[in-house]
Each structure stands twice: as structure tokens, then as C-alpha cells.
């Protein structure tokens, strides 16, 4: 089944086109990495697909439902870990997680069970009673990602999830993501290319709002006639820059 399909998806802000005529199709349970240099349009694409902002032109479909007309039915089955850490500062780690679980329709008991499970798999146990605002940046980040996962979405957007995590936490998160992708569709953005290569089934590279190429890392490297994926990424990103 198709998880995401976009038709000429476009977003224009005053004076600039952040996302231009995006056409892509992502399958269910695929892990798709959306790459591109700063300002390429990754976050804007995620904001449109998660029904946060309206496209200027075109449309997108999440499991067949239109993001412009049917957001009501899309919202319960998706979740996002925003690029910027997004936690309620005066709530504890547990309270933050329970809040999100309940907003997505879980009752008190199942919220608590899910909270405990996710605290265990994210190594948040030792800080679970602490207020989010006093956590270190990396712990806040982990909490923010955990809050996206607790609703058990069918489609998950991870916007630069590993930003600010130490090497150990990053590898831990990789493990979590690998396990998740068995029964979840994941769209991931990152500036760590080796992360995209290690985790994703397919990669798309955006340059100035346009999706330039889609394929596995091997396919992209071959098409760009490059020695490795990083060279291919640089070649594609620069060749289009004017």
C-alpha cells in the first residue's frame, strides 16, 4: 500500500518557493530519508504532509487521504518529531509522555503503560520525574522523539532526530528506529549522510525546493558517477546551485 503520494506539491512563501512541484510516492513500512542542504525545503515538506501548513498548490495523500481536505482523518495516524525540540517545560518527563498519549485517545491506564514502556526503550528512567526544562539538551531531544512515538503512528516524521545527541544515544536511536520500521512508515531528515545510508530503504535529495533524485544510496551513487554517497550528495546539491 502507498503511504504517501504527492501531486505537484508546492509551497510558496513571500518571494520564495520553498517546495516546488514535489511528486513522490512512498510505500507502507518504508524508511525514506529526505536529504538536502540547509533551506532545501525538507521541513516545509514535512509541515505540509503533517497538515500543519497548507500547500500553495498541488496536494498530498496519506494512506489515500488528502492533506488539504481530510486532515481530520490523517492526524490520528501520524506524528512528528519536530526539528526543534518540542516539550512542555514545566511538566516532568512522565507527564509529557502521558499528556501526548492521552491527547491521542488513550485512557489513563494505557497511557501509563505506554509511558513506562517508552521510558525504558529511550533510557529516560533516571530522569522520569524531572521537569523537562532542567534536562540536558540531549535528554530533551530524546523525550521529544519519544513523544512522537508514544501515539504509535502508522506514519512517523523524524525531522533531524539525532541533532544534539551524543554518539551512544545516536546509536541507541538507530536501533530503536530499525526496530520501528518493521511496522511503521518513517520519513527521516538528517544532515548525517552515513545515518541516511545506514537506516533508509530509499533516499530523496532536495535542492532548492525540488526533489532531484530518488533511489537507494547505491543507485544514487551510481547515477552520479561518484566514488561514494557523500560525493554523490555534494555533486547533486552543487550542480543545481546557481
Amino acid at each position, binding site marked *: 500500500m502507498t503511504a504517501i503520494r504527492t501531486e505537484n506539491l508546492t509551497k510558496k512563501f513571500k518571494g520564495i518557493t520553498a517546495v516546488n512541484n514535489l511528486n513522490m510516492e512512498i510505500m507502507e513500512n518504508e524508511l525514506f530519508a529526505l536529504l538536502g542542504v540547509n533551506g532545501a525545503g525538507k521541513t516545509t515538506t514535512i509541515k505540509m504532509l503533517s497538515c500543519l501548513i497548507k500547500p500553495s498548490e498541488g496536494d498530498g495523500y496519506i494512506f489515500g487521504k488528502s492533506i488539504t481536505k481530510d486532515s481530520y482523518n490523517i492526524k490520528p495516524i501520524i506524528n512528528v518529531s519536530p526539528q526543534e525540540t518540542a516539550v512542555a517545560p514545566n511538566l516532568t518527563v512522565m507527564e509529557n509522555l502521558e499528556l501526548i498519549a*492521552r491527547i491521542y485517545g488513550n485512557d489513563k491506564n494505557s497511557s501509563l503503560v505506554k509511558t513506562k514502556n517508552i521510558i525504558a526503550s529511550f533510557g529516560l528512567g533516571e530522569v522520569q520525574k524531572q521537569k523537562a526544562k532542567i534536562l540536558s539538551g540531549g535528554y530533551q531531544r530524546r523525550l521529544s522523539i519519544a513523544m512522537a512515538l508514544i501515539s504509535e503512528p502508522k506514519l512517523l516524521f523524524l525531522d533531524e532526530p539525532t541533532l544534539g545527541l551524543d554518539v551512544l544515544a545516536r546509536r541507541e536511536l538507530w536501533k530503536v528506529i530499525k526496530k520501528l520500521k518493521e511496522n511503521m512508515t518513517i520519513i527521516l531528515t538528517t544532515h548525517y549522510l552515513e545515518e541516511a545510508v545506514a537506516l533508509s530503504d530509499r533516499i530523496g535529495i532536495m535542492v532548492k525546493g525540488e526533489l532531484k533524485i530518488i533511489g537507494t544510496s547505491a543507485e544514487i551513487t551510481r547515477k552520479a558517477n561518484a566514488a561514494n554517497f557523500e560525493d554523490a550528495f555534494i555533486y547533486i546539491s552543487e550542480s543545481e546551485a546557481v
Partner: protein
Amino acid sequence: MKISAFALRNSREILRDKLNLAFGLGFPLIVLLLLSAIQANIPVELFAIDHITPGIAVFGLSFISLFSGMLIAKDRTSSFMLRLYISPMKSSDFILGYTLPLLPMAVMQTIICFIAAIALGLTISMNILLAIIVLIPSAVLFIAIGLLCGSIFNDRQVGGICGALLTNLSAWLSGTWFDLSLVGGTFKKIAELLPFSHAVDAGRAAMAGQFDMIIPHLIWVIGYAAVILVLAIYAFTVKAKSDNK
């Protein structure tokens, strides 16, 4: 489910801010003590405890606007809000989630104000209960003002408008500090066109047992509360959309 979870979060955010508590409870109580100290030395009818308490209660409620306005203004620009906008929460969930926890807080604040007044010599009678009930529309009014300001302004502006302007308006234009008819003229007319003096007068009428005087004053408060609440809902919904454009 959604509403109660969000409401719980909002009351935690407000109550865990010690400064909120200090201002919301401390300020009105200090003023109450101050005025009754003045009253003890130079008795003025205006500052008689039965007369002054409803005014102090209304003054205290203006801090509720500050809390709700600050919370919403801060939320609106935070990435945490992004997460809530992405979630299945509807506009009505947001509005109710912000309003509902504030109402019991406002009523509690009013009750504490009256208990302090009793300690200072307020005549104990059933009229106290009535006065507290009569002040509930005022609580809604101030919550709505907070919602509106929080939806339109940023947190620093809310601090200025609700924290400085509104608390002063509700103090000076409510007839708590001085008898409005002593000043008279345009000042009195403006005060009578605004809801604050009516809120206080409705409370005073309840305290004095002049029951037929309550409704004429209360109508002003309820009218203002309804209009501002509608404006606030509109502003929040529109602003929520444009914040993400």
C-alpha cells in the same frame, strides 16, 4: 479525554510557576491588609471591609488574565504548540483546555480573598456565598480577556497589557480605591461603560443584601464576558493558523 489532559497540563504550567502564585494570591491579600490598616487608623466608609472586599476580589481576578494570557502567548510561539497543532486537537479543545482549569483557580482565589477578609472582620453571612457566586461572571470575563490578549500579543506585550494596564484599570476604574461619583464627569462615564465597576458593584450589592441591584450590574459583566470570549475564540483560531503559515 483530550480536553482534560490538556487542561491538567495547563493548570500544572500555571501552578508550578511560583511567581504566579505570589502575585495572584499575595498581591490582593497585601492590598487588603493595607487598606484595612488604613481603615483601622483613619476610618473611611469606602474602606470598610464589607465594602472593599468585592473590589479586592475583582482586582485579584485581573491576575488571572495575566496567567492565561502569558501561558497562551508563550505556548503559541513554542515548538511544543507545533506538536499540539499536529495532533488531533480541535480549536474548541484548545479553548476549553485553557479556560476550564482557570475557572476553579479564579473561584479559589476569590474564596481565599473572602476568607482573609473574614479574618479582618468581614461580617459573616450567607451574602458572602452569594457575592462569590456573583463574581463568577467576572472570573469568566477576566479569563476571556487573558485568552484574547494571549492570542493577539506576544508574552512581553501580555505582561505589559494584562500585568500593568489591566490590573490598574480594574483597580482605578472599579470604584475600589475611591468613590467614582467623587471624581464624576467623563471619568465616571468611562468607568460606567466598562465592566469593572459593575463587577465590583454587583459584588457589593450581594454583600449588602440589595438583591435587586445585582442583576442590572451583572448584565454588563456578562455582556462583556460573552463578547470578549467570542472575540478570543476567533482571534485564537485565526492566529493559530497564521502562526504556521
